[in-house]
């Protein structure tokens, strides 16, 4: 599970922060309410998760609340059995 968290965290840093931005992001940093990922950019984050973990996240589940931190995203992915095997 730690691998999944780090992969999502790395993706967020890489894609949504400017290269000079020294903002510290943790698993609990608010992404949507914190202004790091806006509601439009959330679509690309959703596509990343779907591609990487081979899941289909319905729009009803892809809410700003569910995407608001790495930990919340991981909780959402658990609903699709990502990171649950073993």
């Amino acid at each position: 599970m730690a691998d999944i968290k780090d992969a999502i965290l790395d993706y967020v840093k890489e894609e949504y922060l400017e290269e000079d931005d020294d903002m510290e992001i943790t698993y609990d940093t608010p992404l949507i309410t914190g202004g790091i990922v806006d509601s439009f950019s959330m679509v690309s984050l959703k596509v990343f998760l779907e591609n990487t973990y081979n899941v289909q996240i319905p729009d009803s589940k892809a809410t700003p609340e569910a995407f608001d931190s790495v930990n919340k995203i991981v909780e959402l992915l658990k609903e699709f059995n990502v990171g649950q095997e073993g």
Partner: protein
Amino acid sequence: MTDKLPNMKPYEEEVKEFSWDLSKEELNYKDGDTINIGEYCTDRICKLGKADKTALIWEGHSAEVKRYTFDDMRVLTNTIAKFLQDLKINAGDRVCLFMDKVPELYFGVLGILKMGGIAQPLFSAFGGESLLTRLDDAQTSAIFTQKKHVAKVRKILNDLPSLKHIIIVDDDGSKPLREREIAFNMEKAEKVENFDVYPSKAETPSILHYTSGTTGKPKGAQHVHYSLISQYITTKYVLDLKDDDIYWCTADPGWVTGTSYGIIGPWANGVTQCVSDSGFTAENWYKFIEKHKITVWYSAPTAIRALMKDGTETVKKHDLSSLRHLCSVGEPLNAEAVIWSEEAFGLPFHDTYWQTETGSMVINNYPGMKIKPGSMGKPFPGMTATIVDLKTYEPLDKQGTVGMIALKPGWPAMMRTYWNNKKAYDSKFVNGWYLSGDRSSIDEDGYYWFVGRDDDVINTAGHLVGPFEIESALLEHNAIAESAVVGKPDPVNMEVVKAFIALNPGYEPSKMLELEIMNFVRKKLSALAMPQEIEFVDSLPKTRSGKIMRRVLRAKEWGEEIGDISTLENDL
């Protein structure tokens, strides 16, 4: 308690009696006087005895709250104006604001106006290329920004020789400043109690807002200080703001609503307003309304539909009884949203219609006037609106016929030109009418009903996005041979960007390539311009002369008739 009677008389009565002179009288302005929006929103309110009244309640991401009185705002806007003068910024110079919704953005606009500069607010989510296009066109002299956004400015600096100063408002000294950068801490700067406000006149340029069209680069709609006359009275009548209201405009001042009705209108009326710099969630928004006891709320259909999607259970968890008047702007407000808001809040959202170019509200639903859910409402008193034929541009007198919304020029907030593009400006006027580019019909009671745009511009979440800009950006991606961008219907955002893409030899469609292209556009232009859906195609429908027929693709997305395709070169 707020007076229950609306500020505006019954609509028909107001139409007969209204004159812009009424607004001028209330603002104590006479033709030929100096008129400076910065001064009107700060010094004048203090002189009216409201110096200690709260002007701004600001809340950040982590719920930290800052409060400023009108006198605080007067002094801080003086401080910003003096700082710019000391940097040798002159009256008429363009000064950009490229920031999140922080207090420096709001006070920065007024500070720039106080020293005679032209404020050029830009949405902080813009990518480098969007920023470069707009700063280059305006030949901007200085830009206010934050640490988190400065990297985008640094990347394009070599292409912007006119940009003399990059002013960072939250620099903490942890990293050395680079070429042309200067730190400015509004709270810690030496306060300027008295400042000689620039003696602007009615036609002195004030604000430059960029807007996208079907073709070419975005155009800068240039406004003047006289716009205050419209913005003051429409705020008072349509938003119905009163002295004891607590007002929340959810728009970002990077767009025209955020300046006309998120800065100028409410503060010229001496009203307290709240700003949230937090991203959207339904829970957060309701908490914000409850905590600050918001009474008047001006939002957008996209947000309202997102709240609808969340349901009424979240609404019920909060005490929202402070709300008394709700308005909406950005794209047509569907009937379901009006009906839902009555169920959820006990109040309907009042749709308002206007544009970056109009500078103030044009067709609206008014307090006290019967709402027909789904209708845009009626023209603001003092404005002459009609529907003109789509080909001849002659007014149509038949009820229910679809034509283009046209306005008789002359209201105070009308843009005065497109920056550096008089030809495009002139093309907006035909037969003595300003052509809005929006199609509508008028019913038997005089209510307007929105039909759609008359061009290929995409209205996504209330923001206009030009397909040409996106197609140009897409062509810079190595994998893309050609593309066509259209608006696709979306239940929340009205439209979202959809791209049809033909790949270069050696590239194959894949989900990873799709994501790569999405992020490519997002970083280059903005998240709004990012295609939310990509369809890989072998070729695009073109005319025999090689022009891509976007309308064919758009019609397919909307399930509409494709129309005349006699000039089509290839099969669909």
